[in-house]
């Protein structure tokens, strides 16, 4: 649609280059971060002129302008390239006018310079009316469309395959509880659902009865009307492609495909990059990052989780990679533990080489559904326990005179692992493996059903870029996205971090969390800089 037409013509000027992005209403707190991440990936500035978590319409413009040497020649292409990679957007539209009433809308449109319509004068086109939380009958839609007959469009109307598609978006208020109640009978309930939010119910599903019931709320009217032209799609269809129901190898704990793709996107997964999921399980995040172009590595303490029923990968994650034709982006899977990781750690091992990962994405096992495990024997004899909970035992264990770990069926014993210890392991690992500006994105519970709040972990070398919340009935979880601050972790810094409780941050939004982080670590830097005068003037420091 629109591909055959000179669509760049009207947007090269700066006056009219505002765009409407039609968003889905699912996972609303992830939508703006996703677009921001995609803008960074595309190397263009994106400003939000209007955004609301409760609205499916946001208005953006490309600003600041991309540097002249980028391949993106104009705002159109820039905004298109951003939305083209979005999971949570449905499409992008050039915005001509927005107003609370049709009267005002038309007066704005009539006031636009005539050359805007020049490129569309002789192309085939169609008009659409799309009402959010409202409904328009066919005659009403026709009336709205005829209201634009003053536009100089001489081409033929083509409903099936138009070169240009003009869309009138109407935003209505969300239904009040009273309106809901009035509709909450029989078909009325379905109307309410199909009018608001539940986008899985297609409009075509509405029956005549539904439309009659919709008349019950006919005194409602739109609060915002947008006049737009379609310029490009999103890649929301990826969630259909990756639907877990059709995926060959999954488990009950696999994250749904939509959230896995968003996680990879917020970590800036892209062609040419190297990504790792250190708690890979059935490899859902690996698939998501590979789908976005990255080469992917995975590790898990339990190799059976990514192998499935075989010794190799063909019956496990290999089957998924093959299904999606992503085998070319597969790096490796290995069985390993994050606490005793074999991966190269900058500053800790003898290799003097640089940090090497572009992104780390994971959903660590917090022990909510499965027990939290780390390598090591479970406590048996109190004499064998060190201060940090690790077990002391000299030498291997023997079974019939053979070292047990050399037996073919040896399964390394595991011991419980504390929440805080795991979080600081993840942050430390990320700091020592991510390249400058590389990203760490991971999920953690916010609160569980016993109302326990889990604090957000912070680190002096990791800036929090996003904090998005997904709410369930009995608990919530948060996706945290960190960016590696350039610079190396000095030995001094490493020593100091060890003594601090990293999971201290209060606040919910990324900027609140970063403010806290700066405050928290500023005190500590003062101490690190003047190690001689160890005065207790750094109240933010908590030795753990």
């Amino acid at each position, binding site marked *: 649609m629109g591909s055959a037409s000179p669509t760049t013509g009207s947007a090269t000027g700066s006056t009219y280059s505002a765009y409407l992005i039609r968003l889905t209403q699912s996972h609303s707190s992830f939508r703006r971060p996703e677009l921001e991440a995609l803008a960074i990936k595309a190397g263009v500035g994106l400003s939000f002129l209007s955004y609301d978590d409760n609205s499916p319409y946001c208005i953006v413009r490309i600003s600041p302008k991309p540097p002249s040497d980028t391949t993106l020649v104009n705002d159109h292409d820039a905004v298109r390239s951003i939305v083209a990679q979005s999971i949570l957007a449905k499409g992008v539209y050039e915005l001509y006018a927005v107003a609370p009433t049709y009267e005002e809308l038309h007066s704005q449109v009539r006031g636009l310079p005539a050359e805007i319509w020049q490129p569309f004068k002789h192309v085939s086109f169609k008009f659409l009316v799309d009402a959010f939380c409202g409904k328009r009958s066919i005659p009403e839609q026709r009336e709205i469309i005829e209201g634009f007959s003053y536009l100089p469009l001489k081409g033929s109307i083509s409903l099936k395959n138009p070169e240009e598609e003009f869309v009138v978006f109407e935003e209505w208020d969300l239904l009040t509880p009273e309106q809901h109640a009035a509709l909450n009978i029989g078909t009325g309930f379905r109307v309410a659902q199909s009018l608001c939010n539940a986008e899985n119910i297609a409009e075509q599903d509405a029956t005549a009865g539904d439309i009659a019931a919709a008349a019950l709320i006919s005194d409602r009217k739109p609060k915002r009307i947008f006049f737009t032209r379609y310029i490009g799609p999103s890649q929301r269809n990826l969630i259909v492609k990756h639907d877990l129901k059709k995926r060959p190898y999954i488990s009950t704990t696999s994250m749904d495909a939509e959230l896995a793709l968003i996680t990879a996107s917020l970590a800036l997964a892209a062609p*040419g*990059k190297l990504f790792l999921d250190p708690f890979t399980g059935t490899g859902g995040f690996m698939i998501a990052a590979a789908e976005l172009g990255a080469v992917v590595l995975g590790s898990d303490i339990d190799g059976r989780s990514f192998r499935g029923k075989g010794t190799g990968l063909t019956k496990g994650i290999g089957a998924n990679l093959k299904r999606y034709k992503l085998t070319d982006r597969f790096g490796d899977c*290995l069985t390993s533990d994050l606490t005793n990781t074999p991966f190269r750690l900058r500053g800790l091992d*003898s290799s003097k080489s640089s940090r090497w990962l572009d992104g780390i994405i994971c959903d660590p096992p917090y022990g909510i559904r499965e027990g939290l495990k780390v390598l090591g024997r479970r406590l048996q004899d109190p004499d064998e326990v060190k201060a940090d909970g690790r077990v002391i035992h000299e030498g291997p264990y023997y079974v019939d005179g053979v070292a047990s770990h050399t037996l073919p069926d040896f399964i*390394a014993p595991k011991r419980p692992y504390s929440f805080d210890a795991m979080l600081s392991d993840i942050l430390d690992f990320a700091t020592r493996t991510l390249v400058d500006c590389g990203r760490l994105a991971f999920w953690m519970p916010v609160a569980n059903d016993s109302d326990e709040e889990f604090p957000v972990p912070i680190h002096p070398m990791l800036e929090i870029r996003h904090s998005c919340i997904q709410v369930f009935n009995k608990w919530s979880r948060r996706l945290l996205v960190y960016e590696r601050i350039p610079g190396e972790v000095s030995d001094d810094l490493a020593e100091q971090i060890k003594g601090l409780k990293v999971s201290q941050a209060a606040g919910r939004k990324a900027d609140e969390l970063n403010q806290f982080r700066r405050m928290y670590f500023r005190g500590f830097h003062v101490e690190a800089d003047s190690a001689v005068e160890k005065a207790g003037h750094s109240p933010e420091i908590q030795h753990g």
Partner: protein
Amino acid sequence: MKLLTVNFLTCAVKTCKTSSESYPLHFRDAQLEQNPQTFNPLFIRNILSRLDWSALTTTANELGLTAMLPDHNPADDMMVDSEGATEEEKNRAKDNVISEEVLKKLHTFLVDTAVIEGKLVCGNCGFEYPIKEGVGNFLLPPHLV
């Protein structure tokens, strides 16, 4: 396990990390396999500077694949010490592009070549990490944790 991955691995035993003997890990009884993947020049270019070239050379030597690897990291040709370099040298480095032929060769070595069966051995503690059907196992026995 791809030869690329091995460059990012060292011994999992904490006390081995600081020993120069623990990196790179050494192959024993390695059974090689070629699994050609679509050439990904963007990826090779991106990761070149993150490779430890001397470790990579060690790996190539042990597997008898020395001929597959350039004698130095082509990414080094792209960088010039800003202190000592003349204007001319800097400009030459800026215009340098790694040829597609070199990138393809590196792709074959790093991405297409994998060890399917064998062991990776730490030169410091001697622990052997098994590789089975391409999957390496780096879990440590209790006495090494």
